[in-house]
């Protein structure tokens, strides 16, 4: 437990503030703890600033802080200032859990924004469930989770693939080679891909998982040359993405006839591999930095003004930004009263916000988010060109691949018969 001196001083100061102001705060009905006190709403910001996933999570931290600053500059929420309490869980799931406890119990945050990896989300879940708090998770992930203490604002497999796979089949052909890193996310995504391919009469000519951090793809490329797929469906993550793209090009494969279709390659990976290695490959995501909406132009401009000219926004930092705005609307709906995590969760349902990607909405059926899937073609300049965009927002279906199970507001239920 990180019940440090600093924490103690902070809570002491908070109590002092209470007494001095004559208790103008709201008491939680359920727990009797002060959730919002002294005209302040405390929220936790839990993204790694050090360790393996620090680069991407730093961009999430920055997007979150920028949203909070914007809210405060515009007068806060219902007259109250949002106070972010930033913790660095150092890319380590155990530290995530520890810091989450500190934010929930020690700082009495009314919500926490955090996590990039599924492992870190799974690590903090017990904390939020035990103390009935609320976690806002911005990353696209594999679905198949249904916690009543999380609002999920990233894409789930049906949102990334429902339009993407049919488009790939139509444009390039029916033979798919599935390649992913060896952990839960790629396997769940590939499950969905296989179901879609079956419906479309497509064929999986190979399915391969490489260890995390793998960088030698000559065997895989050999197999790809042998099986001659129309599409290489990739859920490889991290620096392996860079190695795969470079070795693909060096081996003389051509994206015009056998493109890589990815759910994980963003502007950031492209910057690391060099635009010429990414050009002609495709990614499906609800957001690209090049998205042409007034909201996005402002988002990108503000982000670069706040954090540096060379900064990029990506399909994880955008939800990290808009979910704070959804939180604001939920608290506003409550009128600043009865500010408990469960009440905020209920108020968040059906909230709509004009995000950089388009109008998003929190689905009351499963606390995931309606999003706008897009297909982007990577360009040599490192950006994506959006070539297809969903005509309507797409409902999140975290259990799409598991027809026997349904995510409901009260948690997972098994459907009968």
């Amino acid at each position, binding site marked *: 437990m990180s019940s440090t001196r600093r924490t103690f001083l902070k809570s002491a100061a908070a109590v002092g503030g209470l007494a001095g102001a004559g208790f103008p705060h709201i008491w939680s009905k359920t727990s009797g703890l002060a959730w919002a006190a002294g005209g302040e709403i405390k929220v936790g910001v839990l993204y790694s600033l050090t360790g393996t996933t620090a680069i991407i999570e730093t961009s999430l931290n920055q997007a979150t802080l920028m949203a909070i600053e914007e809210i405060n500059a515009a007068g806060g929420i219902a007259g109250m200032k949002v106070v972010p309490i930033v913790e660095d869980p150092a890319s380590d799931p155990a530290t995530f859990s520890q810091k989450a406890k500190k934010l929930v119990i020690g700082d009495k945050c009314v919500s926490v924004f955090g996590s990039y990896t599924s492992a870190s989300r799974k690590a903090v879940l017990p904390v939020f469930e035990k103390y009935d708090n609320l976690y806002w998770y911005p990353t696209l992930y594999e679905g198949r989770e249904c916690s009543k203490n999380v609002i999920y604002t990233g894409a789930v497999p049906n949102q990334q693939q429902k339009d993407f796979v049919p488009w790939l089949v139509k444009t390039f052909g029916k033979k798919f080679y599935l390649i992913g890193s060896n952990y839960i996310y790629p396997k769940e995504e590939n499950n969905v891909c296989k179901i879609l391919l079956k419906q479309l009469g497509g064929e999986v000519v190979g399915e391969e*998982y*490489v*260890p995390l951090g793998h960088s030698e793809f000559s*065997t895989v490329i050999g197999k790809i040359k042998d099986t001659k797929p129309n599409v290489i469906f990739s859920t490889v993550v991290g*620096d392996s993405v860079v190695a795969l793209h*470079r070795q693909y090009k060096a081996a*003389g494969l051509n994206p015009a006839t056998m493109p890589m279709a990815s759910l994980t390659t963003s502007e950031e990976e492209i*910057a*690391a*591999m060099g635009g010429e290695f990414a050009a002609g490959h495709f990614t499906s995501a609800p957001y690209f930095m090049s998205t042409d909406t007034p909201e996005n132009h402002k988002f990108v401009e503000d982000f670069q003004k706040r954090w540096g000219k060379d900064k990029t926004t990506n399909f994880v930092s955008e939800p990290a930004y808009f979910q704070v705005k959804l939180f604001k609307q939920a608290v506003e709906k409550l009128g600043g009263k009865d500010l408990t995590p469960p009440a905020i969760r209920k108020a968040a349902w059906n909230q709509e916000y004009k995000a950089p990607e388009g109008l998003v909405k929190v689905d009351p059926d499963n606390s995931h988010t309606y999003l706008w899937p897009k297909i982007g073609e990577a360009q040599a300049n490192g950006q994506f060109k959006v070539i297809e965009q969903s005509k309507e927002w797409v409902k999140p279906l975290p259990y799409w691949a598991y027809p026997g199970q349904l995510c409901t507001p009260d948690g997972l239920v098994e459907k009968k018969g």
Partner: protein
Amino acid sequence: MSTVISQISVGLSIASILLLVSLGLAIIYGTMGVINLAHGEFVMLGAYSVWFLQSLFGLNLITCLPIVFVLVGVVGLLIEWLLIRHLYTRPLDTILATWGVGVILQQAIRLSAGAELRYVKMPDFLTNPVHIGFYEESAYRIFIFFIAFSLLVITYLLIFHTEYGMRLRAITQNREIARCFGINAGRIYALTFAYGAGLAGIAGALVSPLKSVAPDMGTNYVVDAFLVVVMGGVQSLLGTIASSYLIGQASGVLGFLTNDTMAKAIVFLGVVVLIRLFPQGLFTMRVNRG
């Protein structure tokens, strides 16, 4: 038939990278008995040096190679002088010391160059594949193969056909007696360590356009390099070649038959069994280290 050819070339390609990465380690481990766990970080430094030279001066990768060799070699020399030379009588302690050096180098790069993945450009004339009959192979991988082979030949000549090499071999056999004959063991060791580090630097420079450049990239390479060196027998160049070739082909074939995750596990298992049966590695020279 074409599958067989492509398998052999995949294996050769993996083997040449293994050879490249493990050559420096083999020299340092084999002749000096220093278990250099910072070897992966020398590889990483090589990759970062190219990135640095390219982004600052726009140099071509091939022009960078000699510069990188010298740069990383000097780092090696410095580390040898500051740390390693005090530990020649305590070979086991070098494990901890070099591991510490590795951590420091990794964090130093993380703090100075940043943690993000870096981009190294491949020479233009090597980006496209070449056609050998009906078979197509990456020009860059062929280039790596030839560089690895040339470095091997150079190293062989250095050790077996120069005076420096003769002295090094003398010290390897018996340091005290070699010193009695007037050989400056300290200087020879320092040069050898620098040479091994420089080779690792070149390896890092060469793999960087094909793979990715990150502060923690060395970790994977040091494991591969130790695998090769231990299996080949620590004091044998021939062993290093043979075991890179065997591991490369085995990874290729097993990866083809199963998948890369399985292949890695089976190769590890195979090496463990081999070491159990041949504790000295496949090729050994009977020498008496003083």
